[in-house]
């Protein structure tokens, strides 16, 4: 079971995501955004960073990268697709997740641990968690404020204290089938107590389990 961790110019969390997946027993490989085929992979993670410098709008240029058409194909086939932070922004820009991410309510970058609450356990990052479970992992973003005028999608996790003003306190959102999810805080930064928390393990383990169960929901 192999995960493609996609790297765009400006992405910076790719090594952390690979490290975390491997630490949890997964297998991951870094894939450059100009690749066109993800045939060798069972799932995809779009990691955090500043793809294309966040120029124009976060994720707005990345969604046109060659690799994105295969990311879309996998998402539509029910494979696990997870966007973390900047990756979440890309999935919204690509229309694979509802809504958009705008500047934080206080117009300030926020890097600190935040408490989350599991709302929906039928998604690619929460299926091993329990409803109501508290998860403490780091947030690290300026455009982390999720808004969705259509009120579509499923909120997988929500902030206990809403630090950035997100609608429905949403910290993680999934599509209707649950196989595509975006999360603004960083689960890969919360897998070891020596770094402050291991609460993020259950989220990435959920993702790894989803690879085994692929496809989540038959197409």
């Amino acid at each position, binding site marked *: 079971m192999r995960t493609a961790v996609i790297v765009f*110019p*400006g992405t*910076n*969390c790719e*090594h*952390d995501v690979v*490290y*975390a997946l491997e630490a949890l027993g997964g297998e991951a490989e870094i894939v*450059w955004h100009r690749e066109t085929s993800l045939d060798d992979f069972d799932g995809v993670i779009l990691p955090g*960073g*500043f793809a*294309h*410098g*966040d*120029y124009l709008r976060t994720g707005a240029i990345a969604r046109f990268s060659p690799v994105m058409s295969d990311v879309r194909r996998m998402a539509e086939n029910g494979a696990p697709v997870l966007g973390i932070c900047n990756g979440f922004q890309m999935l919204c820009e690509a229309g694979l997740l509802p809504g958009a991410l705008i500047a934080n309510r206080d117009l*300030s*970058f*926020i*890097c*600190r641990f935040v408490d989350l609450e599991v709302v929906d356990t039928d998604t690619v990052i929460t299926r091993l968690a329990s409803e109501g479970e508290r998860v403490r992992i*780091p947030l*690290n973003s*300026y455009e982390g404020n999720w808004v969705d005028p259509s009120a579509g999608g499923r909120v997988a996790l929500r902030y206990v204290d809403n630090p950035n003003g997100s609608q429905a306190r949403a910290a993680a959102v999934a599509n209707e089938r649950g196989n595509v999810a975006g999360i603004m805080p*960083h689960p*890969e*930064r919360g897998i*070891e107590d*020596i*770094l402050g928390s291991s609460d993020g393990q259950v989220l990435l383990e959920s993702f790894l389990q989803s690879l085994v169960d692929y496809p989540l929901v038959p197409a």
Partner: protein
Amino acid sequence: MTTPTGPAHQKLGMTDDEYESIVGILGREPLPAELAMYSVMWSEHCSYKSSRRHLERFPTEAPWVVVGPGENAGVVDIGDGWLAALRIESHNHPSFVEPYQGAATGVGGILRDVFTMGARPIALWDQIRVGPLDQPKNRYLLKGVVSGIAGYGNAVGVPTVGGEIEFDDCYSGNPLVNVMCLGILRKEQLVLGTAGTPGTIAVLLGKATGRDGIGGASILASASFEDESEEKRPSVQVGDPFEEKKLIEACLELYEKSLVVGVQDLGAAGLSCATSEPAGRAGLGMRIELDAVHRRESGMTAPELLMSESQERMMAFVSPGNLDRVLAVADKWEIETAVVGEVKPGPNLTIRHNGRVVAEVPAASLANDAPLLDRPSARPGWLDDVWSAQTSVNDVEPVDLLLKLLDDPAIGSSAWVHEQYDHMLFLSTVIGPGSDGSLLRMKGTDKALAVSTDGNGRLCYLDPRRGAARLVYEAALNVAVAGARPLAVVDNLNFGNPEKPEVMWQLIETVEGISGACEALGIPVVGGNVSFYNETDGVDIHPTPVVGLLGLADPMPSSPPRWSQANEGMEIWEVGPEPTDNLAGSAAQRVAGEALGGRPTAPSPERARRVVTLAADLAHLVPVLHDISDGGLAVAVAEICIASGVGARINNAEPAAMFSEDPHRFVVVMESGTADLPADLATRVGIIGGDSLSLGSGTLDLSIITNAWRQALPSALGV
């Protein structure tokens, strides 16, 4: 600054003597492009002409030093095939003129210094000094500088894991922004700034060259400010962290594939520096075609192309056989390239523009033959008066003074600053901002690197030699309480106008202080930076050396001490020499409203060595260690209480015992008997417990001190 009139060399900030030296080297009058190159390379910022003879005092050797001062960054061996590269730089003048871009490009510049050596930059530290926050201009400067560091550092993908803020009137007209970077690399990936051998090709990588920052760092940082400083705004460079991120990844791929023989970043003095220094180091010459330089403005003259400080550019030196592969890597990372020249035998740097030779000068003369000045120095006459001042806080209630200290923006929580910085990227930050020293684990090894950056302008104003030595000892103790042993130092020497004998005396004393302390600890100085002319309208800043000290924890403590690990019933011990009642230069003196005065307590090399070793050993055993510095024992214990969410009682509330900042002291909090502490150095001073902090007969609720500490900086900023 009004534009000087007179001969061309004076307009470029050169003296008549310097001009005569150039004529002597060339045997003729220099051409305009040649004069431009000498003016930037021989500027104070690039040539260290006022400080160089004094910097030779620094101890620079140790068995673990791989690259000492003089290269782009210092490099030390940390064992098992790993090296660490470190460097510190100032961006003081640009940050005053334009705080966001000034601070942002400071980050960009220090990163290039480190990845030029073949290292991946893994962390940054920022030292910020501005005037008091009751002045709107200072609030604007601090907000701008922090946004600039966040905007660039976060986007370029290197975590900012620590730093310091200090406020003083002397920085109102002249803020200080110093940034330190640490990188790590495998031994075989070390790259030096050399041009290699004749036939090697010079490839310019990165952003197109424009007219931004012409003479920026070199000229801006080499003269004082007067009223019209905003006219200098065009000399500040503009940063592009996305371009830098691509440049980092491209260069690291070039190193990994062994495709370059040498690399030099383009910072201060731009192309002038990136051609003459590597050629000079190789003892060779070079031919450069300015027409090949990719640029974003038309009509640039040769002097402009040679002086431009456009950001995010690197010069790579490549064997002809590897050129295609180098260009392919650059293409993959979507960065622009230009083949601009070739290394030649002989000493001359020959520069052509529009088909004509515009400069032909000995390459090494630009880098090495800058005038070496011996400026007069004199002990300031006012020092005796300042030393005779007495400070006492005996008539102030200790709890009142403690509350004032915690409510001070320099002592209160720095969360407003460091939560704007990504300080967790790379999954290495075991101890991050808001502690004594940062502790960064090295994944895949048992090792961790610890860094502390420390400055204290007030202490150094009162006694630059003692003050500077105490900074080194404080930094050493800060890494020790994280479990590391000191390894190497970089320093950033921020001073006033070197043409004043008192300022030169302060520099010489500071260098002596740092050198003595490093010798006592057995560690070398592996690099540094001097920033002179921190003077506005004739008023100099306090002498403000900033020390960045790298330590190695091998192995890393399995559970490193943290301020947050105190529990009900634990004992509080103070370790170190008994403090005196000398409050010279202390935070207590400042917040009590007393004039800055007195002579700071002298440090002791023997005690420094002993407490540093002891703290590094205890870090493997006890839950809480905390260096005693700003605000003394009272603030150290309060910070532990706030972080742990529990109260404490301190028995002896004598002001000297509470607020002294005498050196070589730290706090241990532990269950009774967890570790044996030496009887001649350790005193049990109190116990953890309850929901208030008691000093003698006075008491403060934990919620009150927590709130004061948390709100100090945001309230002062009005955010």
